[in-house]
């Protein structure tokens, strides 16, 4: 009788061990945590034709010369922003309706059409390559402007406060060699808003 009881006891213990292991496995579940927040942004104006603000006095207004720097600066197409940048030197206004602090990143993809200049991703121009930067209010332009790459740029503005608007501009240096086409080139600049991570 004693032997039978011990046998039953062992069998029950062996049954219980895997059951307990299965229960313990729930501690390893994948977790999905979402942060209650919303992101909202708009930019105005949503167009820019370099050298179309007041013109550089050399090239016909609205046209661009090779190997020349143009700014999205209402004070002048060939006027570099000051240190620090002020609102009046920025063409674009970001209206930010987000409920949390955000980062703003500006990418300047390769052109299509015409000479189809590509982005050097270095901020400087070269043969068939253009250079580009983004800048915003409050930034020290000479040292703080951010290279606007075709993709993968650093954030132009980090920790932009919730519902805080900001102004920004672009610097565009045309390719170093002469144009080979008279057709227009087009690029659509991308302004990306993402959740700020300290």
């Amino acid at each position, binding site marked *: *009788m*004693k032997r039978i*009881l*011990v046998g*039953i*006891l062992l069998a*029950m*213990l062996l*049954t*219980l061990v895997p*059951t*307990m292991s*299965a*229960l313990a496995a729930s501690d*390893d*579940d*994948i*977790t*999905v*945590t*979402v*942060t*209650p*927040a*919303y*992101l*909202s*942004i*708009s*930019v105005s*104006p*949503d*167009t*820019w034709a370099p050298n179309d603000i007041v013109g550089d006095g050399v090239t016909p207004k609205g046209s661009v010369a090779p190997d020349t720097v143009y700014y999205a600066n209402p004070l002048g197409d060939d006027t570099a922003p000051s240190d620090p940048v002020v609102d009046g030197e920025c063409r*674009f206004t970001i209206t930010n*309706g*987000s*409920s*949390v602090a*955000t*980062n703003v*990143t500006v*990418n300047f993809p390769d052109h299509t059409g015409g000479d189809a200049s590509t982005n050097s991703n270095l901020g400087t121009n070269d043969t068939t390559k253009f250079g580009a930067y983004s800048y915003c209010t409050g930034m020290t332009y000479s040292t703080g402007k951010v290279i606007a790459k075709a*993709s*993968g*740029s*650093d*954030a132009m503005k980090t920790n932009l406060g919730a519902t805080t608007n900001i102004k920004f501009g672009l610097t565009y240096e045309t390719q170093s060699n002469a144009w080979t086409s008279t057709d227009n080139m*087009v*690029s*659509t*600049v*991308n*302004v*990306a*808003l*993402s*959740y700020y*991570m*300290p």
Partner: protein
Amino acid sequence: MRILAVSLVILAMTLAGCVGFTDPEPAPTPEPEVHSGSVILPENPPMDRTWVSPGKVQIGNYYPGGRAEYSVTIHNGKDTSTEFSVSYRYPDNVATGYDKPPLEAQDWIIIADMTPILMPKETRDVLVALTMPKEAKVESKKWEFWISVIDMAQTGTIRTELCVRTLIDMR
């Protein structure tokens, strides 16, 4: 002898309690468990502006073969029907301590509706699932990708994009 009998009764009672948590049926072929997160919005998101939510999703304890799901909520703040593009996005920059995703990651993301058309002022959830194959290998234990939401009605040369950060912590 009496002690043994009492032990037997206690064990039987314990086992009966545990059995309640387990499936008595034979285990079927294991399917990956689905772990999902839902969005809780802050109070009063604006109706007249386009927005997405959440801003950040954190997936913890993730492993190859696992499946994690969450919804990206999109609101069309315009007075006209608008098509949106919802897509996987290689991040421009990542959070401190996180790496950029492996190139294969774009194949691991399933988006239920990549081109939703929202009516004026409509709010809609789009399901996103991360399904890394069992045999996949990632070098980084912490990596990040973005889900991009773009209003396709934008016609200018300056375009905006709303990006939902998704941070992965591997088991």
